[in-house]
Structure formats: C-alpha cells, structure tokens
C-alpha cells in the first residue's frame, strides 16, 4: 500500500472505530433524515387519493434528507476533531496532507451511505416511489451524488473547524456550491421513478454527477493543504 493510501486507511479506520463505539453520528444523522422524510411524507402524500406523492416529490425529498443529514454529519464529524485540536495533529503527521482529507472524506461518505441504506427504502415505501426498479442506476446516482456532496462538505467543514460561527457558515457555503450535485441527483432520481422510467436521462445525470465529483475532488485535493495551513 502506498504511503498516501496508508494514511487514508489509518484516518478512516480511526473515524469508523470511534463511530462504531459511540454510534453518535449515525444515530443523529439517521434520526434527522427519518424525521425529514416523515414530515414531508405527511405534507405531500394525499389522504383518500391513490396514495402517491405529487410528481417527483419523492426524488426531491430524498435528496433534501441526504443534504440536511449530510450537513449535520459533516459538522459533528469535525466537531470531534475540534476537541483536542486533533485535526492539527493529523496535519502534523509526515504523510501527504491531502491523504488526511481523503481519510475524512471516506468516513463521511461511509456514514452517509449507511444513512441512505435506511432512508431510501422508507422514501420508496411512504411515497410509493419505484426506486428499486433500477437498483444499479439508483446506487450510481446516490453514490456519485454523495461523494460530490461530501467532497465539498469535507473541505468546507475542515476549513471552518476553528471558526466561531462554523455551524451557520457551513450550510451557507456548502449549499450554493453543491446545487449542481443536488439538481443532478434529484433529476436523475426523478427520471428513474417516472411511470415510464427515462433510463437514458438517468445515465446522463449520472455522468454529470461523475464529472462534478472529478472536478470537486481535484479542486479539494489541490487546495486542502493551503487552506488548512495558516
């Protein structure tokens, strides 16, 4: 294993070990995402009708739940590094500093994917959305979308680690930048749950998400060291 990936593995393994012990982040993130989905389902799914939500609402609500719970997870993940200023300790280690970023990113993506495993079936159930008719395409949308969102979020959350108003600043910075990811995720998911699924359209949005991921990841790796060192 190269030195870069060794650091990635060590940092990600540490985050997962802490989370496996406390389950604090997973519980709060899942609870928040579930609350989000349930509240929206009450608003959008009509009583006495055919029980289906309005148009593409399920797709939008799924991605809103991911974005909101992801923001919560990002904030809490870096809150842990704030106690004891351990993020600086990671930056003082001899490995490549972008490897620390990727290690944290892997932890955040893992947490969000675990949350999605719980909320996607719930959205499918409550909104009667046919999310599992094209599982691979859905998995690609969720996977690439989550990586894109987490790429930017991990960079911003790390940058704001020592800022006093970081909880307010994180969504203000994060949401405008990740709007392309959200739009691609929502439209791609909506294309999958149409009465006649638009698979070509879904593939197009997946390719767009992949492009966003490449751009965001490259920019994040490029800028991480300079924004983290004062």
């Amino acid at each position, binding site marked *: 294993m190269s*030195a870069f990936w060794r650091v990635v593995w*060590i940092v990600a393994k*540490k985050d997962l070990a802490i989370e496996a012990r406390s389950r604090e982040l997973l519980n709060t993130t899942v609870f928040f995402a579930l609350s989000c989905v349930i509240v929206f389902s009450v608003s959008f799914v009509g009583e006495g009708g055919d029980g289906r939500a309005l148009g593409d609402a399920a797709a939008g609500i799924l991605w809103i739940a991911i974005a909101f719970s992801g923001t919560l997870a990002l904030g809490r993940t870096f809150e842990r590094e704030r106690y004891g200023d*351990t993020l*600086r300790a990671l930056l*003082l*280690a*001899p490995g490549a*500093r972008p490897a620390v970023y990727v290690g944290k990113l892997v932890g955040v993506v893992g947490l969000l994917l675990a949350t999605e495993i719980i909320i996607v079936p719930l959205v499918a159930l409550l909104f009667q959305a046919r999310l599992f008719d094209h599982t691979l395409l859905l998995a690609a949308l969720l996977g690439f979308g989550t990586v894109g969102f987490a790429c930017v979020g991990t960079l911003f959350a790390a940058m704001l680690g020592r800022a006093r108003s970081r909880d307010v600043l994180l969504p203000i910075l994060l949401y405008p930048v990740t709007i392309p990811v959200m739009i691609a995720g929502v439209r791609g998911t909506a294309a999958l749950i149409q009465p006649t699924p638009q698979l070509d359209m879904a593939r197009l949005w997946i390719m767009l998400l992949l492009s966003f991921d490449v751009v965001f990841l490259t920019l994040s790796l490029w800028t991480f060291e300079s924004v983290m060192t*004062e």
Partner: protein
Amino acid sequence: MSVDFLDLSIRELSRHFGRRRALSRLSLECRAGEIVGLLGPNGAGKSTLLAIVSTLAAPSSGELRYGGRTAHEIGAVLRARIGVLSHDLHLYSELTALENLVFFGRLYGVPDPETVAARALERARLADRGADLVSGFSRGMRQRLALERALLHNPRLLLLDEPFTGLDDASTVALIARLRELRSSGCITLLATHDLDVAEVVLDRAVILQDGKLVAIEPDVRGLRKRYQERLSAGARP
C-alpha cells in the same frame, strides 16, 4: 526516505495576520541537545513561532532552515522528525490511551506501534490505564500521555507549548527529567512557557518575546525572573 538535522536556523522571520504583526523579523539559532525557552506575555508570538516551526503556518517573510534546508526542500518527511505538544494536547477523548498512541504511531510510520505505545504508556506512568478512555483522564494524565504521543516517533525537534500546565509536582519533576534525557539524546527542544520557576531549572537559553519582537536572548537562565521583568518593562532589544 528519512531525514535528519542538527540545527534549526530562523532568520528574519515575520508573520502578519492582516495588519497585525504576530512576529517581526525574528532570528534565532538552535542546536541539537539544547532546550530553548520562549518566554513572553500573552500575544508575544510564542505560539505563532511554534506553529511556523512545526510547518502548520507559513511565514509572511524570512527563512527557516532545518539543518541548512527549508521545509519545502525537505518535504513532508520533515514532519516525521518534529514532535509537537500543543496546549490542546492532540488526543482523541473517545479513544483509549493505548488506542491514541497506536493510532499516532501508525500515522508516523513507527515500526511495531503496539510495543512502542506500551512502552510510552509506562513512561507516562499510565500503564494500568491504557485501556481507559482518555475522556476519563485528568488534565495532568492527559498532559503526560500527550507528551509521550509527541515523542513516539523519536523526533529531532520537539516543540512544547505550555507543557507544565496541569501537572502536579511529581509529574513536573518527571517531565523535567524527561526533557533532560531528550537533551542528552540530541533533541532540539523549543519550549514556550509562562512558568519562570521551571524555566530556570530546565532551560539552556531563554528567548524573550514581546509584541512579536525578540526582546532578549538570555544565555544564562539563573535569576531569569528578575531579568525577564526588566527586559519586558524596558522593552529592550538584544
């Protein structure tokens, strides 16, 4: 690739934060086997200097050489020879003492980190608390553990920011003994402290800073408290 150096050379180092000058044209030479104290009131620039030397911050101007080479020339491997104990201790409270040491040992590429961590726990007098979460430790215990964490990878350059905070008398004596042991092994130690009593006992030289400027270099630390007060009130230059 390993790297080593026997001296640290700081030349005309300045650091500005906007219009505020945290460090102003500071020059200093440190040699292997020397404990150099950084003294000064709050805001004097001690922590900024340690951050720059540790490579966490970049200077606005000036030069820093580790054995004749800059951090840029040496690359990331330089950090494998630097140990840092900051005021925030750099420990994960959700991990046990042993897990913390093993984690940082792995991060620094220390061979056989479990054995090294176990030895470090003994030196920190925490061998019987290795399986306990750090969140349950007192400040003094954390401080001892953090010092061993900073020394796990056998650094050539040790940067200590207020290392005596929270230590009881026995731990202070043990830390002084440990610093002398490191001096004998050729470690360069830069130690920022407000504790002048301890400084008189442990330092080889004292550098007095005020408002980011070097006020004096005291080659003899005997009677340091009196001279420190005089230097600061006079705002004298070396």
